[in-house]
């Protein structure tokens, strides 16, 4: 097979090129669509080719601009990176198709396509660059690319709720970026280099306590991106307000970039001090606190955001074990989770489209209303809950086996925690299913009205969950800074004032879902099921990837005396 290293930068350059073009053609939506789709399709193809190359011929390395080691910036496409690249490329392509199908309706006025396309492409480029980066500072730049793009996408339309959510997201991430820069300054001060491969060598000669500090600084930075407890609280407040496809791609990819960074840096730079216990504790708390959050929610989007956080814990669990089995399981789980979480948020978008809301208080009877939708929700939801034989189950089994093989008491505790988490995930999902899909809209309407303190004013019921909470549960206790006015503002610009029952009664809903939205969703779900069929080879692949990470020589040799 011919040398493919020249391809390595393309997954970053092509989307940027596309971003430039789509901006230049601001006035021609059609052209923009063509450009974007072509670029993303190309990226998928390239990622696939690189995956094969990395698996058959070892890591593909390119020194950009021909500035060889140790001067320039290197991009490295090894097994792990290419796998992440391929999965994310496929997911982004499908999400884009979905958002085209959606025509960003529901945000028709809010989201000018000429903002959407370039920003989305920059996001894709940033993600790809983060996976390929062989240089810590370049990793920082990659993060900034995807972050800025995400800032824009998150605040599309600038509604009250999105600005509120956006503020939390932006400020937290800017702080984490500063933290990243501080860590980089420290790393450079201590070693005089930022290239990962060189650092791997130089850090061995740095004193242990200094190395440990550097490791912890980087870990903290990445933990914020990956939303690991106690650095995870910002996520559920910020993701759910964005338009469905945006939330989907965020949930699927952004946190995983953080996980990837942790995995890469831990294994490559600090193989001797894996900080096992620290990571395991973090994983446990992430899982449990996260899933409890999911149980507490009464809006599907937020519920899913919390399961997202919670399941990050599984991956950290695998990384924390620092054994081949653990890391392999973690990688597999990442691949699974990217597809499934994205798919679920796309489905939620469909729900919003079909039923006008995602608040459990307003939903009901979706099984009857749209069996297709029910199927599209049920399958990935059960997959998320780890119901066999789907990929979630396989990933979980891999991690649990790794935990039991480890045998340490903390690992055992993690196994128990993991099992409970998946049970609670199932509970949260079954709750959603029972309320939104089984219960009839009339019942939902009646229940909302029948809530004790609600009598008299249907307006309040119609104001939706938040305000309804004000009436039902506050019992006069003025709590927090959010008063009724703020609450009402959010509810008003977030979702219509009528619940599903009323919307149906008034015939205010689209009678069916556009195929252009359903098809990408279905395709993504099909892919997630495909993961089960190819689980054998895929797991073998992640095993090989884990091997590469643990004995670092493939990476190091490829970069340092690689053929470039």
């Amino acid at each position, binding site marked *: 097979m011919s040398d493919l290293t*020249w391809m390595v930068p393309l997954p970053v350059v092509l989307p940027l090129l596309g971003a430039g073009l789509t901006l230049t053609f601001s006035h021609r939506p059609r052209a923009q669509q063509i450009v974007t789709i072509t670029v993303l399709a190309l990226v998928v193809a390239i990622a696939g080719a690189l995956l094969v190359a990395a698996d058959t011929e070892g890591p593909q390395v390119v020194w950009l*601009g021909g500035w060889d080691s140790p001067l320039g910036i290197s991009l490295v496409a090894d097994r792990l990176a290419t796998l992440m690249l391929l999965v994310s490329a496929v997911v982004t392509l499908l999400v884009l198709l979905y958002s085209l199908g959606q025509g960003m309706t529901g945000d028709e006025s809010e989201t000018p396509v000429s903002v959407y396309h370039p920003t989305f492409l920059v996001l894709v480029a940033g993600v790809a660059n983060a996976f390929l980066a062989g240089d810590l500072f370049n990793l920082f730049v990659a993060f900034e690319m995807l972050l*800025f793009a995400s800032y824009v996408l998150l605040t599309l339309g600038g509604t009250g709720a999105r600005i509120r959510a956006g503020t939390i997201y932006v400020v937290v991430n800017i702080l984490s970026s500063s933290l990243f820069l501080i860590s980089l300054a420290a790393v450079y001060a201590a070693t005089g280099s930022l*290239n990962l491969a060189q650092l791997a060598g130089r850090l061995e000669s740095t004193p242990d306590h200094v190395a440990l500090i550097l490791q912890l600084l980087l870990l903290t930075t990445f933990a*914020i991106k990956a939303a690991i407890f106690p650095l995870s609280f910002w996520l559920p407040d910020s993701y759910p307000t964005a338009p469905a496809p945006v939330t989907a791609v965020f949930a699927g990819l952004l946190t995983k970039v953080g996980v990837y960074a942790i995995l890469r840096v831990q294994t490559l730079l600090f193989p001797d001090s894996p900080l096992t216990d620290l990571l395991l504790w973090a994983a446990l708390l992430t899982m449990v606190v996260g899933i409890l959050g999911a149980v507490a929610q009464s809006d599907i989007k937020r519920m899913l955001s919390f399961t997202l956080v919670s399941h990050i814990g599984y991956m950290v669990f695998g990384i924390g074990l620092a054994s081949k089995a653990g890391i392999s399981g973690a990688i597999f789980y990442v691949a699974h989770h990217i597809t499934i979480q994205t798919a679920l948020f796309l489905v939620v978008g469909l729900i919003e489209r079909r039923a006008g809301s995602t608040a459990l208080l307003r939903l009901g009877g979706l099984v009857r209303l749209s069996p297709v939708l029910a199927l599209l929700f049920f399958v990935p939801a059960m997959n998320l809950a780890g119901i*066999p034989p789907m990929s979630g189950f396989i990933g979980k089994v891999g991690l649990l086996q790794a935990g039991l093989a480890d045998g340490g008491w903390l690992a055992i505790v993690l196994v128990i925690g993991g099992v409970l988490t998946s049970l609670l995930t199932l509970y949260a999902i079954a709750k959603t299913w029972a309320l939104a899909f089984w219960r009839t809209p009339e019942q939902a309407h009646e229940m909302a009205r029948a809530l004790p303190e609600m009598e008299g004013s249907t307006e309040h019921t119609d104001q939706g969950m938040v305000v309804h909470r004000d009436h039902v549960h506050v019992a006069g206790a003025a709590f927090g800074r959010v008063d009724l006015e703020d609450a009402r503002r959010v509810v008003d610009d977030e979702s219509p004032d009528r619940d599903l029952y009323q919307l149906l009664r008034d015939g205010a809903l689209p009678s069916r879902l556009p195929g252009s939205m359903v098809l990408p969703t279905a395709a993504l779900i099909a892919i997630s099921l495909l993961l089960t069929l190819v*689980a054998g080879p895929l797991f073998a692949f992640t*095993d090989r990837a884990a091997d590469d990470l643990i004995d670092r020589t493939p990476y190091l040799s490829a970069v340092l005396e690689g053929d470039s």
Partner: protein
Amino acid sequence: MLALVAAHFAIAAFSPAFVHWWGRRAFLVLASVPLVTFLWALSLTGRISDGEVLVQAWEWLPGLHLELAFAMGTLQWLMALIVSGIGVLVLAYCAWYFADDDPALPMFSGVFTGFAGAMLGLVLADDLLILFVFWELTTVFSYLLIGSDPAKRASRVAAMQALIVTTLGGLAMLVGMLMLGEQTGTHRISEILADPPSGDWTTIAVILLLVGAISKSALFPLHFWLPGAMAAPTPVSAYLHAASMVKAGVYLVALMAPAFSHVPGWHEIVLTLGVITMLLGGWRAIRQYDIKLLLAYGTVSQLGFLLVLFSEGTRSATLAGLGMLLAHALFKAALFLVVGIIDRSTGTRDLRELSGVGSQMRWIGIAATLAGASMAGLPPLLGFVGKESVFAALLDVAQSPDGDGTGLSPLAAWVVLGGILLGSVFTVAYTARFLWGAFATKPGTAPTVVRPVPVGFAASPILLAGATIVLGFVGPGLTHLFEPHLELYPEGYHHAELALWHGLGLPLLFSLIVFALGTWLFTKRIVFSQLQAALSPSRSADGAYRAVMRFVDRSAVEVTGLAQRGSVAAYLAFILLVVLAVPGAVLISSLGDGFDVVVWDNPAQAVVGALTIVAAFFTVRSRRRMRAVVLVGITGYGTAMLFLLHGAPDLALTQILVETTSLVVFVLVLRRLPEYFTDRPLSPRRYLRMALGAAVGIAVAGFMLLTTNARSEDPVSVGFPGPALEYGGGRSIVSVTLVDIRAWDTMGEISVLVAAATGVASLVFLDTRISGIRRVYQIPYPEAVQKIPTGPGRRVWLPGPRTLSPDRRSIIFEVVTRLIFHTMVLLSVYLLLAGHNHVGGGFAAGMVVGLALMVRYLAGGRYELDEAAPIDAGVLMGFGLFVATAAALVPLAFGGTVLQSAEFHFHLGILGDPHMVTSLLFDVGVYLVVIGLILDLLRTLGSRLDRQILREERAEEQAVRL
């Protein structure tokens, strides 16, 4: 075997279509697959009874020791027959049970058939994990089936209960399985059973497996979900919750018993819970009015009974168990189906309303009576045969010295036997109650109106009842068939055999006593009921479940309320505290040895530094927005000075340009915001903030001290100068680094700028990215200005009169601006070209143009800006990004790598003839992007806000006028 299982799922996938075409008759088609399975299993009878074991296995996930393995020995064969056989009958029964127009039918048919497949897979699986896969699938399908009338709240709740309870058990079981696998290195059931591991690890694993079995087979204290599950349609109850799924736990125990019945805890757990369950179920069954619920509690009782038998671990008990297993499947399914018929044809299941049904549906009555008799253990039915051998087997355990090989103490064995006897009494009692309640003609109750029952509807129960008779007579034959499984156990105290006649002896006596007491209990039902009402326990397991779930919900809310403060400040504080706690702690621990420091490289640093710090201090204190911004600007300029003093002129230049731009942008926005930050009183919180700030500052200082001192090697950049000149073709190493060595970073950086600018635009022009440029000639002259005709061709030198209200004009400023503008643009071009060798570069150049544009805007307003740059900012940036990336790609065409650059010379008139490198093209891209950025900021935060302000002013004027 795999093929058969797959066939089930395949036809399940199509069943909605079938239902769509043929309505409820589709079930007859669906029944074909289980029928084939049944015949296939039947055809194997000979080979199985010769002790043969069929095995199929495929690799699936070697990484996890997960094989797609199936095996069929005696036990699996029996289960397969039950599952498929009853499956056929129930599916056929569905064809009459449902109405064609039932909207739930398509989904139901699919799920139901799917369940049959999963159940078959479960009993055939020879890999623990595969078994778990099907185990969980049955759980999910049963969840959907229980909820198949979702409008009923009770069924939703019941479905949830069943799901949570059985999944909890299932997950415990999964961990147990993985532990076994971890120990034996395989998940193949046959291999594990062949040489079972031992030790504490095994004990725990096995107990976890038992938890799974207990939850699935509804043993106390996890029994409560089963009665609830009766919310499902009757065929579901008959199949899942009587004949097949609830037997899964029994099956698992029966499977494991030969290898693990001596594991400590096994007997204690299963025997105790089994007996309790049998008594509890019977006790509650006697109280029921809903004849379906009565059967449900009866099933709970019987399941406890079966688990006791299989967990004993003796040959005779196992044989009895197999007999009862078969018997129970037959009669319980039959009875449920009868209930369904009664329900459908009378419209009620309440035995207080039913009267004289027996006389109106005679055949069904007879079938039910036979089935009931079998349940009560009357000869000559299979139930009797089973019961007899049960008593015999338990007697062996109680009488033989070593508990017939189980090691049970005689006392324990007698207790078990007593429990079983009492349970059997209850069984007789509730059987009588059922038959009386369903069919008897009750004085004082109006005879129930019964719709005629089609033959097909009645066929299934009658067939099942028939089977109980026939099999009753072939006990020895069955014993022979079961031999291969029995041989897993040592020959017991007596030779065990299923037979109608065991001769006179205790077992027969027991049967008689049980029957007598049972019937007596039934006749005394009124008295007994009052007794029960008196004794009825205040708290049920069901209540406990609800309490637990409530607790989960509550703690979820509490924890979330605690963690999700919802405020940015809180989250930032969390992050900073983590930084202090984790790396900070290490820092403190490693501050032992001193550091080599220099106070300053040159005193000037100290002076500038002091000024900067002072500025920072006042920034923190200032309560006016503008002041804070100006002060932070000063810290910025101070930083620039420090850069310069450190030997970084490019940095200093850029910093100053950026700082100035930021200032302008700040001013543009701040004119809209209130002058003071807030009128909120200073909160005591601020001391915490100060503390946190100080701590973080100190920590960072510590990090830098530590790390700088740790440096042992030269930076990689010592290698830069040579190549920078030869290879990069530039003298200014920083510029070469930016546009060549690390051009990749720069490319990312400009894409960041593009994204940021786009974001600003999308936040300011909420509707569209296109910013409506208006040329001067499009604007009408205000009154009282002498007109000069202009058109697209002609340009005015100073458009001010036309575009600005006189009171806002400063002619001098405008004139000066017009004069310096082009000079600045020219300068920028020079910087762009010279950048490679001297201070400058694309970025600085772009910023200079940006400044020029700002001045134009500030002097002449937004129209002047559009005159200066009549182009859409977005397009400009996009083009810039395009140029840069294209420049990056070009080298690929010449077989180079991305961003590779080549050097060449050319003339540029007065600007001299510098070395040109292709990377210049890249730099041009940067240049354009930066100009675009500034233009964009001016258009959005400048022009657009102008318009908004203007609009508001006009609105106010309107308001005043009106």
